[in-house]
């Protein structure tokens, strides 16, 4: 066995140029695949984090019926006793913060310009416990409770040419269809640029009390956003909250970020199906490379194979020489693929890349993911998968050429002129 391995090892370096080409196909193909997987994982994780930090929190408590109509941003499904619910859940140690919020359809007017947006009324003193809007203020400051000020997403501010200290008008719609609205003149307290471009280009934040007054909601809110300590305990916390809410007379529903972002999840699922094609293509390239190299080797070494058979080498031993050869190219190539994938994945994880080079406006237009910077998530599992995949493919791809080698008639093989 050792001799067969030695023979295979030396044969790998016998046709250097061809080995290098196959090695490159495997290392680049699988290396890029590893980078792709890291990027995909990163997008999945970071995009979800961004959605949680700027839009959904971990859980939302809603009045029954709201979730089904959430895309219409309805105002008729309200939570009328938010404080009572907060008190009920006060002692739950899994909960980091609960914020009362009102979501409403709105538009922002500056001079002659008007742009539609999503209005979010928040509790400024509690919001930082649940969301990361405060951390994303790039100009001005965060809101104070009850003040008549507004925070604009950076894209909105740019498109309307507004800056901190400017005044603008917020048109708050009770009903878009019936065109029933109220208007507030507000000074811009700050500009927020979150990691989520969707928020930046279409969201404004105002203090809760202001919205409640403008929308005549009194103490009612449209949702309670809940941030929990440990995302892995999401199910347990949700069940516990649902248990507590059952004691109340009104019906509520508790919705997780995954359900809230189900459109995004579906998008990711579709992408993952499409992205599965990339590894498949890489696998195909690597397989063809190995098959081609090994078939050439069988052809060029026909007489040698005949001689090995004449010396009494068994078919399985001849096969093993070729399988070892393919496996060695695969192992070297897969190792290099891990280095390429590791470096690429590390760079993506550390730095990431932004579409900003396209210009901020174009970047926002083409970005369909809730991310400003596309960051990777490199795991040891990705590299191990790449290594094993490359090696297994190479071994499998060597089987056919190895089979061709042992099917040769020793007499014909010995006569072969190569």
């Amino acid at each position: 066995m050792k001799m067969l391995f030695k023979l295979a090892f030396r044969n790998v370096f016998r046709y250097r140029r061809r080995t290098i080409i196959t090695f490159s196909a495997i290392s680049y193909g699988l290396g890029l695949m590893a980078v792709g997987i890291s990027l995909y994982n990163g997008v999945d994780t970071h995009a979800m984090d961004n959605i949680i930090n700027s839009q959904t929190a971990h859980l939302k408590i809603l009045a029954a019926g709201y979730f089904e109509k959430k895309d219409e941003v309805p105002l008729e499904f309200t939570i009328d006793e938010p404080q009572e619910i907060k008190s009920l859940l006060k002692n739950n140690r899994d909960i980091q913060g609960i914020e009362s919020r009102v979501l409403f359809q709105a538009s922002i007017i500056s001079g002659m310009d008007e742009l539609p947006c999503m209005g979010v009324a928040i509790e400024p003193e509690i919001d930082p416990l649940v969301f990361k809007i405060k951390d994303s203020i790039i100009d001005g400051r965060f809101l104070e409770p009850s003040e008549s000020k507004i925070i604009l997403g950076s894209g909105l501010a740019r498109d309307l040419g507004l800056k901190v200290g400017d005044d603008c008008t917020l048109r708050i719609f009770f009903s878009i269809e019936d065109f029933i609205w109220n208007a507030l003149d507000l000074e811009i307290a700050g500009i927020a640029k979150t990691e989520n471009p969707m928020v930046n280009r279409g969201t404004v934040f105002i203090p809760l009390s202001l919205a409640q007054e403008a929308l005549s909601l009194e103490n009612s809110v449209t949702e309670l956003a809940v941030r929990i300590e440990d995302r892995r305990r999401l199910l347990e916390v949700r069940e516990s909250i649902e248990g507590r809410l059952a004691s109340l007379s009104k019906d509520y529903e508790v919705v997780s970020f995954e359900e809230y972002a189900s459109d995004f999840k579906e998008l990711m699922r579709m992408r993952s199906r499409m992205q599965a094609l990339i590894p498949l293509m890489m696998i195909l390239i690597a397989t063809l490379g190995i098959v081609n190299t090994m078939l050439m080797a069988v052809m060029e070494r026909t007489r040698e194979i005949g001689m090995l058979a004449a010396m009494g080498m068994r078919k399985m031993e001849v096969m093993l020489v070729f399988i070892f050869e393919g496996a060695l190219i695969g192992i070297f190539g897969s190792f290099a693929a891990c280095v390429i994938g590791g470096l690429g994945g590390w760079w993506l994880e550390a730095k990431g890349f932004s579409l900003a080079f396209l210009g901020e406006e174009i970047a926002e237009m083409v970005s369909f993911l809730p991310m400003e910077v596309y960051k990777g998530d490199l795991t040891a599992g990705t590299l191990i998968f790449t290594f094993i995949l490359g090696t297994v493919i190479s071994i499998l791809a060597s089987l056919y050429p190895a089979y061709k080698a042992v099917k040769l008639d020793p007499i014909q093989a010995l006569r072969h002129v190569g």
Partner: protein
Amino acid sequence: MSIAKLENIHKVYHIGKIDFPALRGISFSIEEGEFLSIAGPSGSGKTTILNLLGCLDKPSQGKIFLEEKDITALPTSKLADVRRKNIGFVFQTFNLIPVLTAMENVEFPLILEGQHDPKERRQVTEDILTEVGLKDFLHRRPNEMSGGQQQRVAVARALVKKPKLVLADEPTANLDSVTGEEILQLMLELNQKTSTTFVFSTHDKMVMDFARRIIRLRDGKIESDQKVNKK
């Protein structure tokens, strides 16, 4: 003692739709320690006989015995075992493994045979390479050696496992006459020293001059079977 015996051997090759009879009823036996040349023009059946003796091919009719044992009906895998243990080959084109050194090429049949002690293996290999005059070329690869040196390695490789029979198919055809004669002289010396049986095919008069027995073939039949007495 008879090392090999062929009984009424016929061999027909099917080339397309045409049947080509390569051997037509060949019978002879080979005694231990013979230095036998099978001679004849191209297409007379020399290589076919070597292939049959070497268990690389099976006859269409007739029986082949190696050391009294009928090998005609053995399956391919068993024939590989017979080759591995009992037969050494020397080819016209040397057929060394290019990625192995002289030492490794000669050691290879011992490894295939299952000799596990590397120290002992290397000693046997070194001894035989010294015997064929390649003491200083142990670690050279085939492409670093002349044709004559490569054929010496091939002879050492054929003999290292002490086979019953060494088959050499036109062993000097790719060598100049001086080198060819040296190789034949070497094989003859080893034949006399070790009593290993040598059978080689040739149509070269100089090669036949070395033989102690010459079987001449023509059109797949034995034309003559002649013992040559030499000093």
